[in-house]
């Protein structure tokens, strides 16, 4: 979002034709769309290409804090809470889950390495289940531990950022009937 404010701060260079102005405006609009989609790197690429073309005044391409851009309501507005954010009671219910996962990640995980062939991994599945359903996350993770590969390993493969492939077994496959 801060990048969106930056994009608005950029101005077209002097001497550009009306057609060029319109083109630059469309590219800036695209950059803003990309920033709103959360693709800040792509937005920066669009701006970088414009700057390299000389279509933007480089002096104007200075970073300005979002709070200074009073004209952009989307920047000034407080961020909306993410969808499905758990309430206070549910957050409390996730405390034991977070403690268990933290213990596992600090002491057990490093010792045995990343062994889970499922995506999300069991620890992330547990946290997600508890975030969505509170203490019901405990029986859900118990069921996942008990399930043998034919029931756990779906045909859907997910590629992780590190390039490895895992079997998709999201929480949504097991709570859709709640």
């Amino acid at each position, binding site marked *: 979002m801060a990048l969106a404010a930056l994009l608005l701060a950029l101005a077209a260079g002097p001497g550009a034709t009306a057609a060029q102005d319109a083109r630059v405006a469309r590219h800036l609009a695209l950059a803003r769309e990309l920033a709103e989609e959360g693709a800040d790197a792509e937005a920066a*690429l669009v701006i970088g290409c414009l700057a390299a073309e000389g279509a933007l005044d480089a002096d104007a391409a200075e970073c300005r804090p979002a709070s200074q851009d009073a004209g952009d309501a989307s920047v000034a507005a407080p961020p909306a809470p993410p969808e499905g954010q758990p309430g206070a009671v549910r957050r409390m219910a996730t405390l034991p889950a977070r403690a268990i996962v933290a213990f596992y990640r600090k002491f057990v995980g490093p010792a045995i390495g990343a062994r889970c062939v499922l995506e999300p991994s069991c620890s992330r599945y547990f946290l997600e289940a508890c975030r969505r359903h509170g203490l019901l996350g*405990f*029986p859900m993770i*118990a069921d996942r531990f*008990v399930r043998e590969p034919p*029931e756990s390993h779906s045909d859907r493969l997910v590629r992780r950022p590190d390039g490895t492939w895992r079997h998709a077994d999201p929480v949504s496959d097991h709570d859709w009937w709640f």
Partner: protein
Amino acid sequence: MTAAAHLRAAAIAAAAFLTAAPACLAAPSAGARVSLASSLRASGEYSLASLEYRRLAADLDPGDPSLPGLFLAAADSYLAGGEFTRMGRMIDAAEDCATAVPGESRGDISAAALYLRLRRAEGLRDWPSAAGYAEELAREAPEAATWASCKAAAFHVRSGDLASAKAAVADDPDRAAAVDGLASATRKSPRLGGILGIVPGLGYAYSGEYGNMFRSMFLNGIFGWAMFECADHDRWGLFSITAFFELTWYTGSIYGGIDAAHRYNRSLDAAAAESVEPQGRPRLVRDAALDFFSLRLEF
């Protein structure tokens, strides 16, 4: 730096170079940029491929007949990368642009847009919407009618609407029989699975998951035994720990009994949907007959 990072950096540099070349070089043609986007997509850089299509669209004036095709190409690349939210935006943009272009000079993007909407709903597992798009595609595009009808039937099966599924494949006896087979198949009751799960493992056995049954019985048995042993020896600290784990396994058995029944029913639906799924899949290709960028479905 990994190979993927090198590739990404090279792609970004190429995109920047092609579009922001110094004045001594000629500006890259639209064809070269479409080729760049295709190459990015072929190398698995789906977001960057979509970005190149979108940047190309931003170069064009509103009302240009190539705009809908470019947005659909971006949507198709987002589909390949599993970015369904951005894909939906691109389809909307394509349809908005198509209505702004005079009818004489625009390509017919409705079939391509419907196909992409269908694939998006399929990716999101929104079976009723996917079935709706498939039926609309069957009406809109005669060459896609058979494929789309079979897809509609498969989506109806997955959403549990067997009557609509049978109606969609009424002309195909084999597929209609597969739907009939599902209707007569014995489904498992999740409620009964949960009740049987009170006896550790029995809920799994009810749905035919015998390996899970033995694991659940073993874990419940060992932790239950440890819990009672700790109580017998007045070791209440250990008792509380073992009781915590036993409670987790026990409630897991009940939950697992319910979920196993749902899994069983889902696998029945999936098998039936597989048997009515059409062979092959159309693909979106550039319409070479037009002098602007447009996409069409090819079977």
